[in-house]
């Protein structure tokens, strides 16, 4: 086979990881081919979601300015639900969105964002084929040398697996076993269309501003939570939880989500809107400890969701930014490596340099904190009880605060020992 027929890299999947990798490679003059199974990039992809802007700016200075993004997040919210009660905490910090610097994060829809980013990679010189699924990897002398897609065999120095959370490629390469049920969450989401004026009124937003809300206490006690993001002319409402928990409860994921949608505190935000899409996706939940031991072998590297690059702290969820970072890291490894065998180790080094691995490592203890079962039902009940106590004025004398609060803890079945255990876990953060 002639040298002309061989790419420097073949990227499987035109999501943020794959396109960021292809963009960086093409910019350095490398011959790169992206193969995407959807007809248009983004058509198979789902986010909560939001994108933290720094990653896009690392890919290229000022890239976010023309990106297909929804609203800059100005209102950070955490809402706890208990029965028909709701406690909402909101942070508005102008420092997150200062004039003259990049807003910290944007809400995003993947059909438009992924299409835009893949198009950017194409304009930089990457080749993109869509509507084609990669079926197999080609292995020779223990090295991955290409892919089989339909009738075609395509060859490259490096195959980049950016094929998402169910990474068939990484499995075929023998790098990761089947996903473990305790390590994933399943997310479901409705996109609810509403005029931008109404969204801005309901969330107290100025034009272009957006809210991001995490929801606790909406999963029937199952480990997980809900989310709400305001887009330009729609609201992304969804929840993520362990499928194992739903199976044990024998309660359908779809039903639990419909209950959340109809909760009075949520319903008032989406009332009058129209659902235009329903989607579902797996989310890697294990953080640092869920990353496969080996993310490369000769001629092959694993990126983004396929590599388990997701951080869930309970109050924020990161994935797209990490995907982009890993794409940049893999591209830099390919660009700088003298020979194919050097790419994998160089990729691991680059993952450190872009601070992806250290960040994931540092956030690892969140996994243990979030394993606390009473966070998902008793804690939101307690929060609603405490605030109800604090804000109740009836003319009665009422109880003294300390014994009242201790009583509320007891009522909710949370012992001081439970709090101590959580404290120990929290001390490692």
């Amino acid at each position, binding site marked *: 086979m002639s040298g002309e027929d061989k790419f420097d890299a073949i990227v499987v999947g035109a999501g943020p990881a794959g396109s960021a990798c292809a963009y960086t490679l093409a910019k350095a003059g490398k011959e790169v081919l992206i193969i995407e199974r959807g*007809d248009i990039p983004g058509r198979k992809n*789902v986010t909560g979601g939001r994108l933290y802007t720094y990653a896009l700016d690392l890919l290229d200075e000022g890239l976010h300015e023309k990106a297909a993004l929804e609203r800059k997040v100005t209102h950070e919210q955490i809402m706890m639900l208990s029965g028909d009660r709701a406690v909402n905490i909101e942070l508005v910090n102008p420092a997150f969105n200062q004039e003259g610097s990049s807003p910290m994060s944007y809400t995003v829809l993947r059909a438009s964002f992924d299409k835009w980013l893949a198009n950017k990679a194409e304009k930089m010189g990457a080749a993109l084929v*869509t509507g084609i699924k990669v079926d197999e990897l080609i292995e020779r002398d223990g090295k991955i040398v290409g892919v089989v897609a339909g009738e075609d065999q395509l060859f490259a120095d490096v195959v980049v697996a950016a094929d998402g959370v169910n990474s068939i490629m990484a499995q075929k390469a023998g790098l990761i076993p089947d996903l473990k049920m305790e390590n994933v969450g399943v997310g479901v989401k409705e996109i609810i269309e509403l005029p931008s004026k109404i969204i801005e009124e309901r969330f107290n937003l100025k034009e272009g501003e957006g809210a991001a809300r995490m929801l606790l206490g909406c999963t029937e006690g199952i480990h997980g939570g809900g989310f709400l993001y305001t887009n330009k002319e729609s609201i992304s409402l969804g929840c993520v939880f362990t499928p194992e928990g739903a199976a044990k409860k024998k309660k359908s994921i779809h039903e639990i989500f419909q209950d959340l949608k109809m909760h009075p505190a949520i319903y008032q935000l989406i009332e009058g809107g129209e659902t235009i899409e329903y989607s579902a996706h797996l989310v890697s939940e294990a953080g640092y400890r869920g990353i496969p031991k080996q993310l490369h072998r000769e001629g092959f590297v694993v990126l983004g969701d396929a590599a388990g690059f997701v951080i869930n702290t309970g109050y924020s969820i990161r994935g797209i930014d990490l995907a982009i970072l890993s794409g940049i890291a893999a591209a830099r490894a390919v660009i700088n490596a003298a020979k194919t065998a050097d790419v994998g180790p160089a990729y691991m080094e680059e993952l450190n340099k872009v601070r992806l691995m250290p960040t994931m490592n540092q956030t690892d203890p969140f996994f243990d904190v979030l394993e606390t079962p009473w966070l998902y039902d008793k804690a939101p009940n307690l929060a609603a009880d405490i605030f109800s106590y604090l804000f109740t004025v009836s003319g009665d004398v009422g109880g003294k605060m300390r014994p009242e609060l201790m009583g509320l803890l007891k009522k909710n079945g949370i012992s001081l020992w439970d709090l101590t255990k959580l404290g120990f876990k929290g001390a490692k953060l």
Partner: protein
Amino acid sequence: MSIDRMTAPGLLGLDSFTVDEEKAHIVVNKEICAKCAEKPCLYVCPAVLYKLGKNGELTFDYAGCLECGTCRVMCKNKGIIKWEYPRGSFGVNFRCG
């Protein structure tokens, strides 16, 4: 239209699918499933595509699959004998995502 509780088929009706009539991307062996006591697939599929038939047998239709992979992860007794993504350009097409 306004916001209301919706059934899974109602929600799937809002989505765009290009169904591959020739090739099922997920195949279930009903004999294995008949022996599975837990049947987690009944609860965890966001599209509610795994159901019980009149005689208690498992039924499954791949046409409304959202391609999340939850059934694949949760299938304990390997009744799902094949799980692949649909062939290129088939399956769900998210317009928002």
